[in-house]
């Protein structure tokens, strides 16, 4: 029986930067400045650092925005001279947040984000169809949060994370001339986040935040097999519909962020961020089928263990904003995002690259309203693929761009 490899994507589906591209798209204004974090102008700071809420100038702030994320991955096999490109539909992440200060020292808020939502669509019959044909992911982060102003220049905030994820994954099972679909629409997990936000000087903002690991539990997943003949179903201990249940616990990894914003002049600010992601937690994925003996564990034939061997990764961000007038703002940024795995661990269901991203955008402010647009152009570095565990060898490259539109409303 072929290995059924459940991918990183399962977990990537509920993490902000993983999967096809480690895309950070939780704030349009932020994206325009390389998705840096130390911007406490409105409620969009909530996802980046709950403590930032205390420095939002208004009592009530509401933000919402959406993005289009387009990407294409190309894989070429130097042995067979085959070349394959994905045909991915446009990803549409969105975010919304509301923050409120019932008293001056206390802020409460709620942030809803879709830290990941994308679809990898390889051609149905491509050479790697046994690993993935299509992988669709959706995710939602619900984060109620609270922040306390400890002093004029410092606040502390914390959030509770409730994460929901959907995975829908098709892959071929060529040995039986068929296909398997792995689906769980109710994966969920819990976590927390906290941070400190400092403004030691009117010119300087410093944001330090931590988001905890989350164990995403897919408890009631269903694997549906489709074969030309049903006689295999009983051999694999599937039900009459060719189905079996599975469960998996997906270790989500923690993230540390430190960011700062410096007002060089009243009109010009510069921001820098450093993120550190604890991907090392994701050394393997264990998939436990209810009945089907399609695993590879010596002790239990229904348990499938897939090595992932991720490593911790870093992101460096640099962004800037210039106020042309007090109504029109121009923004630029660039960041470098490390892939969390080596060439030896490249997987086609969640292709990942060391990526440089150039970002830019403009913002308009009209009294309490703000409208921001942003774009990002990614320069993923092509890489060799040398995965001996899967026998997946070749080269991969990618291209991607993002655009976003965000609204903010700070009524009072």
């Amino acid at each position, binding site marked *: 029986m072929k290995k059924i490899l459940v991918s990183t994507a399962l977990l990537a589906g509920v993490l902000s930067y993983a999967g096809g591209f480690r895309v950070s798209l939780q704030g349009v204004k932020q994206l325009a400045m390389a998705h840096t974090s130390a911007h406490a102008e409105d409620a969009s700071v909530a996802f980046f650092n709950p403590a930032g809420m205390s420095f939002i100038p208004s009592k009530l702030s509401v933000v919402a925005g959406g993005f289009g994320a387009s990407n294409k991955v190309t894989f*070429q096999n130097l042995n067979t001279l085959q070349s394959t490109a994905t045909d991915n539909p446009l990803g549409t992440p969105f975010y919304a947040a509301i923050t409120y200060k019932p008293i001056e020292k206390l802020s409460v808020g709620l942030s809803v984000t879709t830290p990941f939502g994308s679809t990898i669509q390889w051609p149905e019959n491509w050479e790697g*169809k*046994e690993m993935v044909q299509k992988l669709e992911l959706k995710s939602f982060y619900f984060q109620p949060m609270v922040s306390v102003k400890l002093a004029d220049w410092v606040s502390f905030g914390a959030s509770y994370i409730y994460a929901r994820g959907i995975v829908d994954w098709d892959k071929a099972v060529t040995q039986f001339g068929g296909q398997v679909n792995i689906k769980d629409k109710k994966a969920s997990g819990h976590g927390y986040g906290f941070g400190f936000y400092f403004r030691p000087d009117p010119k300087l903002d410093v944001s330090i935040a931590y988001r905890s690991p989350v164990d995403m539990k897919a408890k009631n997943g269903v694997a549906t097999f489709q074969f030309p003949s049903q006689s295999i179903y009983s051999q694999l201990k599937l039900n009459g519909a060719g189905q079996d249940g599975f469960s998996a616990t997906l270790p989500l990894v923690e993230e540390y962020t430190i960011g700062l914003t410096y007002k060089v002049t009243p009109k010009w600010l510069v921001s820098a961020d450093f993120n550190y992601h604890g991907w090392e937690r994701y050394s393997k994925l264990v998939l436990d089928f209810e009945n089907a003996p399609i695993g590879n564990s010596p002790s239990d034939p229904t348990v499938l263990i897939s090595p992932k061997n991720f490593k911790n990764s870093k992101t460096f961000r640099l962004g800037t904003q210039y106020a042309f007038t007090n109504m029109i703002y121009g923004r630029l940024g660039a960041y470098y995002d490390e892939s969390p795995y080596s060439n030896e661990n490249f997987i086609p269901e969640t292709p990942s690259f060391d990526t440089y991203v150039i970002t830019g955008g403009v913002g308009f402010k009209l009294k309490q309203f703000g409208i921001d647009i942003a774009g990002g152009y990614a*320069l993923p570095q*092509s890489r060799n693929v040398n995965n001996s565990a899967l*026998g*997946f060898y070749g080269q991969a*490259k*990618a291209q991607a761009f993002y655009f976003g539109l965000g609204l903010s409303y700070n009524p009072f």
Partner: protein
Amino acid sequence: MKKIIISTIAVSALLFTVTSCNTDFDTDVKDIPVTKGDADFTKYISLGNSLTSGYRDGALYSSGQNESYPSMIAGQMRLAGGGAFTQPLMPNDVGGFNNLPGFPGKLNLQVVNGSLTPVPSGAAAALDILPNGGSYQNMGVPGAKSFHLVADGYGSQAGLLTGTANPYFVRFASSPGTSVLKDAMAQKATFFSLWIGNNDVLSYATNGGTNSQTVGTVTTYSTATVQTGNTNPTTYKSNDISDPAVVAGSIKGVLDGLKSVGTAKGVIANIPYVTSVPFFTTVPYNPLTPQALGANLATLNASLYGPLKQALTAFGAGDRINLLSATASNPVLIKDVALQDLSAQLTAALTPSLGAQMAAAFGQIFGQARQATSEDYILLTTSSVINSVAPGAPAPVNIYGISYPLQNQHVLTKTEAGYVKTATDAYNASIKSLADSYGLAFVDANKKMLELNGQSGISFDGVKYTAKFVTGGSFSLDGVHLTGRGYGIVANEFIKSINMKYRSTLPQVDPNKYSGVKFP
């Protein structure tokens, strides 16, 4: 501060312009030309045995032939000036010859009593003689040993009766008197592949080191000979191990013959250890679990294993048999003709307790009996024999493997496996040195098969291939020959070697494209 920030931006901008140029491939595969290098693929012929013909599932049948490794290689050669590659296709997709004994149709996988079992089918048609004999590029002949390639009359229909001919060659030989080599030379090919020698040792192994003779319905087995110092293959019985000198000489004869007509460039492969194929590795040496033996276990120990061990110990052969364990899986009983025959001694020792008649039977049955060890190979075909009733044996010592030893033809014993390995090593040494002296590309098929047989197998694009029977993906239902996917793996080894030797750039095939075991 201002300066620092400005310079930081400048530096990072510079960083971007320097590094962002690696987003594309150095070379796109669309721009890589397929070249023939120093070779000429205009006319490629393949020589060999069943493995070369595309034989699988215990038969030669048309869809299997279409997935033979030579036809895959030829397909890639066509990208670099290769010409047509015709194969002597069977007239149907079942195989076998219904007018010849011993040529059934292919095995089919079916669910029998809830488990997947290969089931034989009847032969589909009579032996057909193909038109245009001698014009086929795939000249692989199932069953051919090395010396058969240079044997005149190997394709003579009349020779089928005397056992000097092979129906598969009869089908496509240019004339009754020709040899495979002569027909190959007549084609004046520009490139050849040769993979021969497996059968010089394989038939010995798959028959447990025995030759058989069937008269009417009675088959008798005799110990096959490991030929050394006898370079006249016409004196060999069908399952003898060929003298390494004969194998080396035959292969050299083929190479010389081809060279004489200008077919000097080609590729040659060595012989895998037969013990790395599922036919020998599927049935465990110790399948007798305490659960399966049940209450019988204690009875067997008390009335058979105990007395036997006691008697054997007295003759200094106590290590042949141990009492059955109630906690661990137990080995089967086998007959090992390499052991000293203790029949007379056993009979004498057991007469007081069993009576003369029974003691005589015991002596005769257990004189060369021992329990199998992990170094013995129980044949795939023996799985249905174990636990069946041995005809003619007196109850209660008549259950194969449990109370009656599996016979010589059921098992490749450690000693016999040693002969096989020694011969294989000798063949392979000559194949390698011939490859070197004739300047040919060389395929280490043995190494690849061992890799396949290893714990982790070989993976292609997420599909894992192992040498496990039925489910491993690479071996067909006969446990010896490969599936289309397995042949794809072989084709790639040939292509890699050809490219390395002749500086050609033939692309490899994608093994996953081809068919595996057909599930019901």
